[in-house]
């Protein structure tokens, strides 16, 4: 039993486990997170949050999730593919049920981290489907560059209501391949989210901006998306962006002051995307337009 004033956590780990074992242990852990009177904590969930996290991204992903768990009470399923470790395959699980204080009460959320050894990484949807909470949206955060066209990507996109990528994590800006998923799932891009305050700033410069010479410099993905956005919305050509440094824009060769909104943390950025449900057609058009961009 843990105090209602939490924060508290009940944990379990197992090697070579089945989904049935995971469900049974989760049930047991939830019963163990109780208030001072021994009653189970309330579980409130607004989604199932699936994260596909190759081992090299695991530390970064865990830091982001740690910063946002209280904001998005959910069942989080972290899938860590380790295809080369064991040819026969198997699933190792680490489960935790965390209780967050909320006023006089606490709310419990669940984290299921599954290491998918060998061929068990090949059919991830078959693991997600039995673990997804019924009737709630499934958000998929794909860490790193997705293997577009491969089984894992296609399967998980098919079960997700929203896919969240960060194109700044990619080796190449493969927006054209990402676009093939637009009809199957809503797509968010953290790199696009980072351009949010710039888009607001530039939108305020309408209508003059429609005819001005626009020059963009900045991180590769963000600059390409901002250029794609301007090109698609204004219906005109925009100079290819210059790579490097902070995002910056010149209109008719004059610097546009950088928006004053403070930098958002990775947790803030992901958190904002998890609040969105509808398809973002403005992003889709920007990403498609960005595919024709090559760095200047």
């Amino acid at each position, binding site marked *: 039993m843990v105090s209602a004033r939490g924060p508290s956590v009940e944990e379990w780990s197992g090697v070579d486990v089945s989904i049935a074992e995971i469900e049974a242990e989760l049930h047991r852990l939830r019963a163990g997170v109780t208030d001072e009177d021994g009653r189970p904590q*309330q579980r*409130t969930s*607004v989604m199932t949050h699936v994260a596909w996290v190759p081992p090299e991204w695991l530390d970064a992903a865990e830091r982001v999730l740690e910063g*946002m768990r*209280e*904001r*998005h*009470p959910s069942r989080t399923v972290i899938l860590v593919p380790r295809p080369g470790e064991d040819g026969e395959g198997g699933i190792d699980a680490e489960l935790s049920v965390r209780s967050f204080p*909320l*006023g*006089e*009460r606490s*709310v419990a959320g669940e984290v299921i981290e599954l290491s998918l050894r060998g061929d068990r990484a090949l059919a991830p949807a078959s693991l997600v489907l039995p673990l997804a909470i019924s009737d709630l949206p499934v958000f998929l955060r794909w860490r790193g560059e997705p293997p577009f066209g491969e089984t894992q990507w296609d399967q998980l996109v098919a079960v997700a209501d929203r896919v969240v990528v960060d194109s700044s994590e990619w080796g190449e800006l493969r927006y054209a391949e990402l676009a093939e998923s637009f009809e199957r799932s809503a797509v968010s891009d953290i790199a696009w989210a980072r351009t*949010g305050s710039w*888009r*607001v700033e*530039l*939108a305020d410069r*309408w*209508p003059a*901006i*429609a005819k001005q010479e626009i020059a963009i410099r900045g991180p590769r993905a963000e600059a390409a998306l901002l250029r794609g956005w*301007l*090109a*698609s*919305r*204004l*219906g*005109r050509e925009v100079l290819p962006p210059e790579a490097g440094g902070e995002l910056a824009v010149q209109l008719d060769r004059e610097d546009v002051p950088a928006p004053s*909104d403070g930098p958002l943390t990775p947790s803030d950025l992901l*958190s904002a995307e998890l*609040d969105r449900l509808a398809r*973002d*057609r*403005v*992003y889709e*058009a920007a990403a498609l*337009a960005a595919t024709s961009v090559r760095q200047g």
Partner: protein
Amino acid sequence: MSVVTEERNPLVEGLPLRRRPEPCVIVVFGASGDLTERKLMPALYSLAFRRLLPERFAVVGVARSDESDDGFRDEMRNAVQHFARDPFRQEVWDELAAGMRYLKLDAADTAAADRLAALLAEVDEERGTGGNRLYYFAVPPGAFEPLVRVVAAIPEGEGWKRLIVEKPFGRDLASARELNALVGEHFAESEIFRIDHYLGKETVQNLLALRFANGIFEPVWNRQFIDHIQITVAESIGIEGRAAFYEQAGAIRDIFQNHLLQLLAITGMEPPSDFTAESVRNEKVKVLRSLHTPGPKSVVRGQYGRGFVEGVEVPGYREEEGVAPDSQTETFVAAKLYVDNWRWADTPFYVRMGKRLPRRETTIAIQFKRAPHPPFEEAAVEGLRPNVLLIHVQPDEGLSLAIGAKMPGQGMSIRTVHMDFLYGSAFRDGLPEAYERLILDSMLGDATLFTRSDEIEEQWALVDAIVAGWQRDRAAFPNYAAGTWGPPSADDLLHRDGRSWRRH
């Protein structure tokens, strides 16, 4: 690719909706008062913190006391540091404070309007606020009239003008009508924003979402399925040094006339055709007009005597400083009300409100009728209570639905369990303070969450009818101990109908 036209900005599509008002200056009358310190300035800071204020914005504090611009800024900075819900950030404060001015003003002074007008012209020039003025009367009702005249005498310019007034709006129907007429001489109804801060609370707005965004509740939201409704507005505090106000107001004018009747109206209203100010207020006023005036047996008044609250002995109302030793002011009201319309005929709304009750709680409890014929043995359902949908307005904002569930084990035994939805557990942002929403709405000209003149008058008409009944005899006060749920007669009000107040 989009076609660019002169009329439409193609870049705004998909951007987060920014409810950012036009440039304006907010003129706070009563700038040295408690409300400004505890609510208004912290709310303005929180709006600034979230970049929701206009870029060109100014605050002019007006009061009768001597103060400099810098002194006013210092006081407001302290207020923000003490009472704002957001952490203090110097850069946010600096931006807000840069547009702050103070004016010592006596409304009786014949030059008052000229002096205020001169300062506002100066502020418009300095801050680019374009002549848009939001006047906020954070003053007692007695000060309204001279201030309305001051504001009315300020020459109108290019911009808009709006007026926010705090409750209480009048002290009876006649005075409310006078005030409406006075304000109406100088402001159109669409320019008047009568604040009932309960309407700015997220959970009150969530009640509208609950009823009108879900398909499952509205079909059972009527006399066919609901046995009765209980609305409780309970405070554990006493009068907190406000004897002069409370002796005149009592619970019926302080809470019943405004907060409680607004909660009842939102609970009982028909679905509006859209979410515009006029549509929502049209539906609320229909409920208020349909309220049946309760007879003397359907209203209970009380006054607390000495007792214990949270383990501490507290004095009775008549022992509070500034209260008459034979005061007849009520600190508790309970009533059985009926909304005489097709939806609610014969469905009682039991309401209670008071001070020095066991705890602070505002709830709306929708008690449904019992299942008509549970096919279980009597013993199986003896612990089963009717379904109740409980809306927690404050604290612990959320919803709770009481349902019957089978107890684990052999045989059939059913007991009541609660399914809870805690507002803060499902949504990541902290709940904004009511004043943040209401100030922002008034800057945007959206009056949906403000009370219209006809609503105010209907509310006072009901209060006048109840109070008239009280004038005939003296109440045997005090009649409940501090820390209890009011006088026994409040329980009798429901027991007579075979019901009882919710207990916890």
